[in-house]
């Protein structure tokens, strides 16, 4: 893939929006990959959290939002705790979720009606409340 860099491109509106919701400075990231190395769910992610930051800074909105990375984030804050540049990466992942969930199309990540039978009785409410807050508009 050929990528052209320009000032306008890295200061794109999508990145600004992510920075605004997350309160984080994405430009601090120097792509060391520490976040991805320590992430307990990286094994199931399409791309690592550090790559998500890179995609965002390149203005690749559609590509960034089409990966499963930010949906799989469990907000355990391991990445945020270990980032040598002090970026709270879990907040960046949450910002991406919010960008999807706040759109008027309401593309929820889960559908309650699709839960298997007996699921609601089995799982503790703490999992539902936090899960619904992360996955539903």
């Amino acid at each position, binding site marked *: 893939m050929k990528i052209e860099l320009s000032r306008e491109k890295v200061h794109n509106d999508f990145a600004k929006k992510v920075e*605004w*919701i*997350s*309160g984080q400075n994405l430009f601090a990231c120097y792509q060391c990959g520490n976040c991805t190395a320590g992430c*307990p*769910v990286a*094994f*199931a992610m399409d791309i690592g959290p550090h790559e998500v930051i890179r995609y965002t800074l390149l203005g690749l909105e559609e590509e960034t939002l089409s990966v499963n990375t930010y*949906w*799989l984030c*469990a*907000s*355990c*804050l*391991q990445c*945020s*705790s270990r980032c040598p540049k002090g970026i*709270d990466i*879990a*907040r960046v*992942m*949450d*910002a991406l979720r*919010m960008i999807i969930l706040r759109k008027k199309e309401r593309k929820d*990540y*889960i559908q309650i009606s699709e839960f298997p039978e007996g699921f609601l009785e*089995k*799982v*503790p*409410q*703490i*999992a*539902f*409340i*936090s*899960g*619904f*807050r*992360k*996955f539903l508009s």
Partner: protein
Amino acid sequence: MNYLYFPGCTLYTKAKNFDQTARNCSLLLGFELVELPNWTCCGATFPLATDNLMALLPPARILARAKEQGEVLTTLCAICFNVIKRTNHLIQKDGEKREKINQFIEMNYQGDLKVLHYLEILKQEIGFSTIQERVKKPLNELQAAPYYGCMLLRPFEEMGFDDKERPTLFEEFLTALGARSIDFPYKIECCGSFQSVGTPEVATECAYRILTSAMRQGAEVIVSTCPLCTFNLDQKQSDILKAHLDFKTIPVLYFTQLLGVAMGLEPQTLGFEQNAVDPIPLLKRKGLV
């Protein structure tokens, strides 16, 4: 001295054994957990989007109500502890958000309550040496793996619970009870948390890694501080068995259940029927029940 106590939703239902054992152990240690009147759900997640003030209102209201009753608030559930403590920190530090939140909940709370986890009460206020003296039935070198998970420790700057990479508080607690504490590399790794609702197979894999890591170091039991961790580590073992044929089950107990065993509480009051993997054969083998 008595402590104001916020149980949280799950401790009233799926984790009743956690709540009951803590209340009973407290009485044996000479204090009472006084339930906060009119408590509500804390929201179960600290909002990471900086513009989401709405999710801060339930924990803020809990804090403001608690402040009317006392100076210290304690919780058992690690997630409630995280949400309430982080909200308290935010109210202390961010004047603008504090004002907005107060206007919305129509209360005046300044963030001056002390939020302590029950383990911190045991360490700082009671003392592990006192607990050791009160132990009636030492745990007979039971090889127990302390599983911290995420919520007690991170973010370190706000939680201040223990070292963020190599905590030891839980180990000290287990040693005081006469158990042999097992160190294992996955003790601060995430259990998959709410992914058990979003992408359950990912949470199952996380649990598999944590449990097998502890077992490789010789653990006979995993000790937890969180109802969600316990769900993922204990209840999901039936799913792990389907995904990994080499897997062997291991009991997962709340730390208060082990405290109860050590304090000599009757086994039928310890709520073992709520644990998915039956811990009684292990405890019998160790001569503890």
